[in-house]
């Protein structure tokens, strides 16, 4: 029971949990970890359930759900498989978000619909080698040439880039570095001059490819501009705002799963003549983990509820949720491995994967330090 949730949110939870526990079996997850490939059947089944267009109004062919439904979906998928959650949240936030925010009706029809149906993949190309947490260091440019723009630059750590049909590319439309005029373009990955680097070899979240996107004199028409010239940064930040909550949600999910596994194991495993959970050192560790998971949930659901109610303060709360949940998820997964002892270090037990998958959560979608900046700015203004 939670004061911020309504029965329909619990029904969304039921759906996603049922889906995750039925489809994302041990065999499927092992195979993903081994082959680094995500099964297309599962990707398609998630589309059928409506996981890719959660917040898009039903009139536009979306699901018409709210932010609370969205974070619950992310939490429940991550509880079983973090990488599945990445596959499900990407169309909602990084791919669909910018188009939903600022796209024209034609752009929504052309891009948003197929993204929601799982027929098209779009990646979000913001980060650059020298512009991670600070997008003002961006060097990718878009220079107007008649009715077209010519794009040049290099983006890195772009999730799904190797398999994307389109990329939303953020580029400077004003060469003056002091003018923070950044614009967003929808770029066809098949265009001449677009290439991707080799997929990165990652520590965790195995099964969704990440690579560079290189733009070498890529010519796009003005129809590719998303929003107005100079609205790109605003759009990116609005998108990341939502992404922050989804990221907090996946941290909650993985922490919850790590806690469940730790509890289960501590009851089964015996040392010194009694189950681990009967040793106070372990029992208290579990008590801390459980308390933290509830605190994470509380912060997350509150942020999502505020967003649903249109609160102006939501930015601060979304950052708090992302910061706290990501940090705590790492601690909790670490403790879960610790409780498993030597077995926890082995791939036979789920906590090993949880531990690796949780690590990126304090890094992507705004590092913990960026969240601290946002939070401190909000409370010190």
């Amino acid at each position: 029971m939670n004061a911020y949730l309504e029965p329909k949110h619990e029904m969304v939870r039921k759906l996603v949990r049922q889906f995750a526990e039925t489809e994302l079996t041990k065999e499927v997850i092992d195979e993903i970890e081994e082959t680094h490939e995500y099964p297309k059947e599962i990707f398609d089944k998630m589309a059928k359930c409506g996981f890719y267009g959660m917040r898009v109004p039903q009139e536009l062919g979306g699901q018409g759900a709210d932010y609370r439904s969205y974070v619950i979906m992310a939490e429940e998928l991550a509880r079983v498989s973090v990488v599945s959650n990445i596959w499900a949240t990407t169309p909602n936030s990084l791919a669909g978000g910018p188009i939903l925010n600022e796209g024209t009706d034609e752009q929504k029809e052309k891009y948003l619909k197929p993204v929601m149906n799982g027929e098209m993949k779009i990646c979000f190309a913001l980060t650059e080698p020298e512009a991670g947490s600070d997008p003002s260091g961006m060097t990718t440019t878009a220079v107007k040439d008649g009715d077209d723009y010519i794009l040049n630059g290099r983006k890195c750590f772009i999730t799904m880039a190797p398999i994307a049909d389109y990329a939303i590319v953020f580029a400077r439309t004003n060469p003056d570095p002091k003018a923070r005029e950044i614009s967003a373009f929808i770029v066809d990955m098949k265009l001449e001059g677009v290439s991707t680097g080799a997929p990165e070899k990652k520590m965790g979240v195995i099964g969704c490819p990440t690579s560079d996107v290189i733009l070498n004199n890529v010519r796009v028409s003005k129809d590719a501009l998303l929003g107005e010239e100079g609205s790109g940064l605003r759009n990116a930040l609005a998108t990341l705002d939502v992404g922050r909550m989804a990221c907090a949600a996946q941290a909650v999910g993985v922490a919850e799963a790590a806690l469940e596994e730790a509890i289960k194991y501590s009851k089964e495993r015996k040392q010194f003549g009694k189950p681990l959970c009967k040793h106070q050192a372990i029992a208290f560790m579990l008590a801390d983990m459980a308390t933290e998971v509830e605190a994470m949930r509380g912060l997350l659901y509150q942020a999502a509820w505020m967003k649903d109610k249109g609160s102006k303060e939501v930015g601060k709360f979304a950052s708090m949720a992302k910061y706290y949940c990501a940090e705590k998820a790492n601690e909790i997964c670490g403790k879960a491995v610790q409780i498993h002892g030597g077995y926890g270090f082995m791939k036979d037990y789920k906590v090993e994967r949880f531990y690796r998958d949780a690590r990126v959560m304090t890094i992507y979608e705004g590092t913990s330090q960026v969240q601290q900046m946002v939070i401190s700015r909000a409370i010190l203004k």
Partner: protein
Amino acid sequence: MAIIVKTNECKGCGLCVKNCPFDAIALNADRKAVVGAGCTECGKCVDACPFKAIEKKSLAAAEKKTVNIHDYHGVWVFAEQRGGKLMNVVIELLGEGRKLADEIGTELCAVLLGENVKGLTDELIGYGADKVYYADAPELKSYTTDAYTKVIYDAINEYKPEIVLLGATHIGRDLGPCLSVQCETGLTADCTKLGIDPEDKKIQQTRPAFGGNLMATIVCPNNRPQMSTVRPGVMAKAEFDKNHKGTVIELKPSLKAEDLRVKVLEIINSVENQVSLTDAKIIVSGGMGLGRPEGFELIQKLADRLGGVVGSSRACVDAGWIPHSHQVGQTGTTVKPDIYIACGISGAIQHVAGMKESGYIVAINKNEAAPIFEIADYGIVGDLYEVIPAFIEALDAKNK
């Protein structure tokens, strides 16, 4: 009957709420127990209340009699036949029916429907039936709901049995409900135990509910016949006695076209498929105690004898003795069979995690300190190469 809370006596301790298997009691705002819609009057709360504030009372309205129960006599067994052969459960029902009939002091009868299966009447009499009601018609060759319901309902109406027993087969569980509606009487499904109340001679039917987590004893006090479907394989079979005498009473089925709205186009018998570990009722698993890969042949032999499936510990899979699909445990399959027989398996935590929910666990191991014995219901310390053949022998001996 009804469950009544004496509000003055209720102290609001909530023990009744905790003990109610059906979640049917709650405490109201004044912390007084209130019985809700889910109540089945099982009486658990009556026993649980330390203040004697709950009682089970007869209500005049509920005690109405719909039939004169004294008009009904005899125990009937539905003699289900398929393809001219009696189902095993019929013999079990005759065994159990004999006991019930003797306790009440009444006769045991069988009801047989089919086409040209009169030969079965002798078999039924040999197994203890005092009377066999027999209907012969082409429409009765194979079971159909409409025809069988009609013929048996007409017979019940005419001969008025007090108890009707059916095997809880796919056919019995189709026919039983339809008969119970026709007779407006109670039917208790899938019983595992039957008994007669020594005082009023009524039948007490015990059956599992809640996935076997709860047993309920059910009575049908005021309607007749009292009907049960009985789980196959539970009751002891009747002994065949060729000298037992009985009579055959021919039923004259009157079936009209409108009674036959379901047509049997064909019946297909299929050999049982190899069941998967997850669905298996019986699993025989081998571990490193086998000592060599060929040991699984013995495991297979026992599994075949029991109609079960072969499982394995992880170590044997890693050693390449048996494919991974047989592995039970943390990194294999989690199983919950009725019987799990662990042979030469020490019981490492990863293995136990995958099978500890099994209904009945048998462990065979040389090492008496093996952790598997901690969770075993029956443990044998010994060499599995001696124990398993002896076990198979004992099974064969029992079956003779």
